Protein backbone atom coordinates (compact mmCIF):
# COMPACT_ATOMS: atom_id res chain seq x y z
CA UNK A 1 0.00 0.00 0.00
CA UNK A 2 1.15 3.53 -0.73
CA UNK A 3 1.02 4.66 2.91
CA UNK A 4 3.08 1.69 4.06
CA UNK A 5 5.87 2.35 1.55
CA UNK A 6 5.88 5.98 2.64
CA UNK A 7 6.28 4.92 6.25
CA UNK A 8 9.02 2.47 5.34
CA UNK A 9 10.88 5.15 3.41
CA UNK A 10 10.64 7.41 6.44
CA UNK A 11 12.42 4.79 8.51
CA UNK A 12 15.15 4.12 6.00
CA UNK A 13 18.33 6.17 6.55
CA UNK A 14 19.45 6.37 2.91
CA UNK A 15 16.04 7.57 1.80
CA UNK A 16 15.84 10.16 4.53
CA UNK A 17 19.38 11.29 3.77
CA UNK A 18 18.57 11.77 0.08
CA UNK A 19 15.36 13.58 0.94
CA UNK A 20 17.22 15.88 3.35
CA UNK A 21 19.93 16.64 0.84
CA UNK A 22 17.47 17.55 -1.88
CA UNK A 23 15.19 19.76 0.17
CA UNK A 24 17.71 21.65 2.30
CA UNK A 25 18.50 24.34 -0.28
CA UNK A 26 14.81 25.03 -0.93
CA UNK A 27 13.86 25.44 2.71
CA UNK A 28 17.03 27.39 3.34
CA UNK A 29 16.55 29.72 0.41
CA UNK A 30 12.96 30.45 1.37
CA UNK A 31 13.93 31.04 4.99
CA UNK A 32 16.63 33.55 4.06
CA UNK A 33 14.37 35.50 1.69
CA UNK A 34 11.41 35.48 4.05
CA UNK A 35 13.56 36.64 6.96
CA UNK A 36 14.85 39.59 4.95
CA UNK A 37 11.37 40.54 3.80
CA UNK A 38 9.95 40.21 7.31
CA UNK A 39 12.79 42.25 8.79
CA UNK A 40 12.18 45.01 6.31
CA UNK A 41 8.47 44.88 6.97
CA UNK A 42 8.91 44.94 10.72
CA UNK A 43 11.73 47.41 11.13
CA UNK A 44 10.92 49.83 8.33
CA UNK A 45 7.36 49.52 7.09
CA UNK A 46 5.38 48.78 10.23
CA UNK A 47 4.17 51.81 12.19
CA UNK A 48 5.30 52.32 15.76
CA UNK A 49 3.09 50.93 18.50
CA UNK A 50 0.89 53.33 20.44
CA UNK A 51 2.09 52.18 23.87
CA UNK A 52 5.52 50.68 23.33
CA UNK A 53 6.57 52.98 20.49
CA UNK A 54 9.49 51.52 18.56
CA UNK A 55 10.37 49.04 21.29
CA UNK A 56 7.55 46.79 20.13
CA UNK A 57 9.63 45.94 17.07
CA UNK A 58 11.58 43.55 19.26
CA UNK A 59 8.61 41.24 18.84
CA UNK A 60 9.99 40.37 15.41
CA UNK A 61 13.00 38.68 16.95
CA UNK A 62 11.73 37.68 20.40
CA UNK A 63 8.43 36.00 19.48
CA UNK A 64 9.86 33.77 16.71
CA UNK A 65 12.83 32.65 18.82
CA UNK A 66 10.57 31.86 21.79
CA UNK A 67 8.11 30.02 19.59
CA UNK A 68 10.97 28.07 18.03
CA UNK A 69 12.31 27.03 21.44
CA UNK A 70 8.92 25.46 22.20
CA UNK A 71 8.33 24.06 18.74
CA UNK A 72 11.74 22.40 18.67
CA UNK A 73 11.21 20.76 22.06
CA UNK A 74 7.82 19.46 20.94
CA UNK A 75 9.36 18.12 17.72
CA UNK A 76 12.12 16.51 19.76
CA UNK A 77 9.60 14.90 22.12
CA UNK A 78 7.42 13.63 19.27
CA UNK A 79 10.46 12.21 17.44
CA UNK A 80 11.59 10.61 20.69
CA UNK A 81 8.17 9.07 21.26
CA UNK A 82 8.06 7.74 17.68
CA UNK A 83 11.52 6.28 18.20
CA UNK A 84 10.44 4.58 21.42
CA UNK A 85 7.13 3.25 20.15
CA UNK A 86 8.09 2.14 16.64
CA UNK A 87 11.79 1.64 17.39
CA UNK A 88 12.89 3.84 14.48
CA UNK A 89 16.55 4.77 14.52
CA UNK A 90 15.87 7.70 12.23
CA UNK A 91 13.42 9.14 14.75
CA UNK A 92 16.02 8.95 17.51
CA UNK A 93 18.53 10.60 15.18
CA UNK A 94 16.05 13.41 14.52
CA UNK A 95 15.49 13.95 18.24
CA UNK A 96 19.24 14.15 18.84
CA UNK A 97 19.56 16.64 15.99
CA UNK A 98 16.91 18.91 17.52
CA UNK A 99 18.45 19.32 20.95
CA UNK A 100 21.36 21.73 20.45
CA UNK A 101 19.30 23.96 18.16
CA UNK A 102 16.48 24.08 20.67
CA UNK A 103 18.86 24.98 23.47
CA UNK A 104 20.33 27.85 21.46
CA UNK A 105 16.91 29.26 20.67
CA UNK A 106 15.87 29.04 24.30
CA UNK A 107 18.95 31.15 25.06
CA UNK A 108 17.90 33.51 22.27
CA UNK A 109 14.37 33.75 23.66
CA UNK A 110 15.60 34.46 27.17
CA UNK A 111 18.20 36.95 25.97
CA UNK A 112 15.94 38.92 23.63
CA UNK A 113 13.26 38.80 26.31
CA UNK A 114 15.63 40.34 28.85
CA UNK A 115 16.53 43.11 26.42
CA UNK A 116 12.85 43.79 25.86
CA UNK A 117 11.97 43.52 29.52
CA UNK A 118 14.42 46.15 30.69
CA UNK A 119 12.86 49.11 28.87
CA UNK A 120 9.30 47.84 29.27
CA UNK A 121 9.19 46.51 32.83
CA UNK A 122 12.30 48.17 34.23
CA UNK A 123 13.97 44.84 35.00
CA UNK A 124 16.05 42.42 33.00
CA UNK A 125 14.50 39.50 34.81
CA UNK A 126 11.41 38.72 36.87
CA UNK A 127 10.57 35.40 38.42
CA UNK A 128 7.19 35.16 36.78
CA UNK A 129 5.76 31.81 35.62
CA UNK A 130 6.50 32.07 31.91
CA UNK A 131 10.11 33.22 32.28
CA UNK A 132 10.78 30.66 35.02
CA UNK A 133 9.30 27.86 32.92
CA UNK A 134 11.35 28.95 29.90
CA UNK A 135 14.46 28.74 32.05
CA UNK A 136 13.37 25.25 33.10
CA UNK A 137 13.10 24.43 29.39
CA UNK A 138 16.76 25.35 29.00
CA UNK A 139 17.64 23.01 31.88
CA UNK A 140 15.62 20.26 30.20
CA UNK A 141 17.59 20.69 26.98
CA UNK A 142 20.85 20.54 28.94
CA UNK A 143 19.63 17.50 30.84
CA UNK A 144 18.71 15.79 27.58
CA UNK A 145 22.10 16.47 26.02
CA UNK A 146 23.89 15.58 29.25
CA UNK A 147 22.07 12.29 29.52
CA UNK A 148 22.91 11.41 25.91
CA UNK A 149 26.54 12.21 26.53
CA UNK A 150 26.64 10.30 29.80
CA UNK A 151 25.42 6.95 28.53
CA UNK A 152 27.93 4.95 26.53
CA UNK A 153 25.68 2.49 24.73
CA UNK A 154 24.11 4.45 21.83
CA UNK A 155 20.87 2.47 21.84
CA UNK A 156 20.42 2.98 25.59
CA UNK A 157 21.32 6.63 25.23
CA UNK A 158 18.63 7.00 22.56
CA UNK A 159 15.96 5.36 24.65
CA UNK A 160 16.80 6.96 28.00
CA UNK A 161 16.97 10.45 26.55
CA UNK A 162 13.72 9.75 24.72
CA UNK A 163 12.00 9.00 28.03
CA UNK A 164 13.36 12.26 29.44
CA UNK A 165 12.18 14.24 26.41
CA UNK A 166 8.67 12.81 26.72
CA UNK A 167 8.49 13.39 30.48
CA UNK A 168 9.67 16.97 30.06
CA UNK A 169 7.14 17.87 27.38
CA UNK A 170 4.69 18.78 30.12
CA UNK A 171 6.71 22.01 30.48
CA UNK A 172 5.67 23.20 27.02
CA UNK A 173 1.97 23.74 27.77
CA UNK A 174 2.99 25.29 31.09
CA UNK A 175 5.04 27.89 29.23
CA UNK A 176 2.33 28.44 26.66
CA UNK A 177 -0.60 28.81 29.02
CA UNK A 178 1.12 30.22 32.10
CA UNK A 179 0.24 33.74 31.10
CA UNK A 180 -3.42 32.80 31.12
CA UNK A 181 -3.45 30.61 34.21
CA UNK A 182 -1.53 32.90 36.55
CA UNK A 183 -1.11 36.60 37.03
CA UNK A 184 1.88 37.17 34.91
CA UNK A 185 3.89 40.21 33.98
CA UNK A 186 4.41 38.77 30.51
CA UNK A 187 1.69 39.85 28.11
CA UNK A 188 -1.02 37.54 26.89
CA UNK A 189 -1.03 36.45 23.25
CA UNK A 190 -2.02 39.25 20.95
CA UNK A 191 -1.93 37.30 17.73
CA UNK A 192 -3.42 33.86 18.19
CA UNK A 193 -6.62 34.56 20.01
CA UNK A 194 -10.03 33.18 19.19
CA UNK A 195 -11.42 35.30 16.41
CA UNK A 196 -9.71 38.31 14.96
CA UNK A 197 -6.12 39.10 15.83
CA UNK A 198 -5.65 42.20 17.87
CA UNK A 199 -2.69 43.49 15.97
CA UNK A 200 -2.76 46.03 13.21
CA UNK A 201 -2.31 44.32 9.82
CA UNK A 202 0.79 46.34 8.96
CA UNK A 203 2.38 45.04 12.13
CA UNK A 204 0.95 41.55 11.79
CA UNK A 205 2.10 40.42 8.37
CA UNK A 206 5.84 40.81 9.06
CA UNK A 207 5.38 38.78 12.25
CA UNK A 208 3.52 35.97 10.52
CA UNK A 209 6.07 35.96 7.72
CA UNK A 210 8.86 35.83 10.30
CA UNK A 211 7.23 32.80 11.97
CA UNK A 212 7.04 31.09 8.60
CA UNK A 213 10.65 32.01 7.90
CA UNK A 214 11.83 30.63 11.21
CA UNK A 215 9.87 27.41 10.71
CA UNK A 216 11.48 26.93 7.32
CA UNK A 217 14.84 27.82 8.84
CA UNK A 218 14.46 25.20 11.55
CA UNK A 219 13.61 22.55 8.96
CA UNK A 220 16.77 23.53 7.06
CA UNK A 221 19.02 23.24 10.09
CA UNK A 222 17.31 20.04 11.23
CA UNK A 223 17.82 18.41 7.82
CA UNK A 224 21.52 19.32 7.86
CA UNK A 225 22.04 18.02 11.39
CA UNK A 226 19.98 14.92 10.66
CA UNK A 227 22.26 14.09 7.76
CA UNK A 228 25.27 14.41 10.05
CA UNK A 229 23.61 12.18 12.67
CA UNK A 230 22.75 9.51 10.11
CA UNK A 231 26.31 9.47 8.78
CA UNK A 232 27.68 9.04 12.28
CA UNK A 233 25.22 6.35 13.28
CA UNK A 234 25.26 4.20 10.22
CA UNK A 235 28.97 3.47 10.58
CA UNK A 236 30.04 1.43 7.55
CA UNK A 237 26.76 0.96 5.75
CA UNK A 238 27.08 0.65 2.00
CA UNK A 239 24.76 3.53 1.19
CA UNK A 240 27.23 5.92 2.79
CA UNK A 241 29.82 4.89 0.24
CA UNK A 242 27.61 6.09 -2.60
CA UNK A 243 26.65 9.28 -0.85
CA UNK A 244 30.20 10.37 -0.25
CA UNK A 245 31.42 9.59 -3.75
Amino acid at each position, binding site marked *: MATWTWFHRLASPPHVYAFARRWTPWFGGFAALAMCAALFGGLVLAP*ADYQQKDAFRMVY*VHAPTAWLSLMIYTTMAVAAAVGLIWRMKVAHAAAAACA*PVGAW*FTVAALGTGMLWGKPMWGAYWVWDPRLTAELVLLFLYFGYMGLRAGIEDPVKADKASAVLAVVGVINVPIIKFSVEWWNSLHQVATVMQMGKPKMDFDMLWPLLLMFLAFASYFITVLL*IRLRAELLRRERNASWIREVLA
Partner: protein
Amino acid sequence: MSEFFDMGGYGKYLWPAFALGFGIVVLNVVLALNSLSSAKQDARRRMEMSQ
Protein backbone atom coordinates in the same frame (compact mmCIF):
# COMPACT_ATOMS: atom_id res chain seq x y z
CA MET B 1 18.77 57.53 9.09
CA SER B 2 20.02 58.25 12.57
CA GLU B 3 16.50 58.11 13.93
CA PHE B 4 16.24 54.65 12.44
CA PHE B 5 19.18 53.59 14.59
CA ASP B 6 17.81 55.45 17.56
CA MET B 7 14.42 53.70 17.37
CA GLY B 8 12.71 56.28 19.53
CA GLY B 9 15.32 55.93 22.25
CA TYR B 10 15.06 52.15 22.43
CA GLY B 11 17.88 51.52 20.01
CA LYS B 12 20.35 50.41 22.66
CA TYR B 13 18.06 47.51 23.55
CA LEU B 14 16.57 46.78 20.18
CA TRP B 15 19.71 46.38 18.11
CA PRO B 16 21.51 44.09 20.57
CA ALA B 17 18.34 42.01 20.71
CA PHE B 18 18.28 41.61 16.93
CA ALA B 19 22.02 40.97 16.88
CA LEU B 20 21.60 38.25 19.52
CA GLY B 21 18.63 36.61 17.85
CA PHE B 22 19.90 36.63 14.31
CA GLY B 23 23.44 35.96 15.44
CA ILE B 24 22.17 32.72 16.93
CA VAL B 25 20.31 32.04 13.68
CA VAL B 26 23.53 32.34 11.69
CA LEU B 27 25.53 30.48 14.34
CA ASN B 28 23.28 27.46 14.15
CA VAL B 29 23.62 27.23 10.40
CA VAL B 30 27.41 27.34 10.76
CA LEU B 31 27.38 24.77 13.57
CA ALA B 32 25.10 22.45 11.60
CA LEU B 33 27.26 22.65 8.47
CA ASN B 34 30.39 22.03 10.55
CA SER B 35 28.76 19.02 12.12
CA LEU B 36 27.89 17.66 8.69
CA SER B 37 31.34 18.17 7.20
CA SER B 38 33.08 16.58 10.16
CA ALA B 39 30.67 13.64 10.01
CA LYS B 40 31.50 13.25 6.32
CA GLN B 41 35.22 13.40 7.09
CA ASP B 42 34.88 10.75 9.78
CA ALA B 43 32.87 8.54 7.46
CA ARG B 44 35.50 8.86 4.72
CA ARG B 45 38.23 7.97 7.16
CA ARG B 46 36.31 4.94 8.34
CA MET B 47 35.81 3.76 4.77
CA GLU B 48 39.52 4.11 3.95
CA MET B 49 40.50 2.18 7.04
CA SER B 50 38.12 -0.65 6.31
CA GLN B 51 39.30 -1.06 2.71
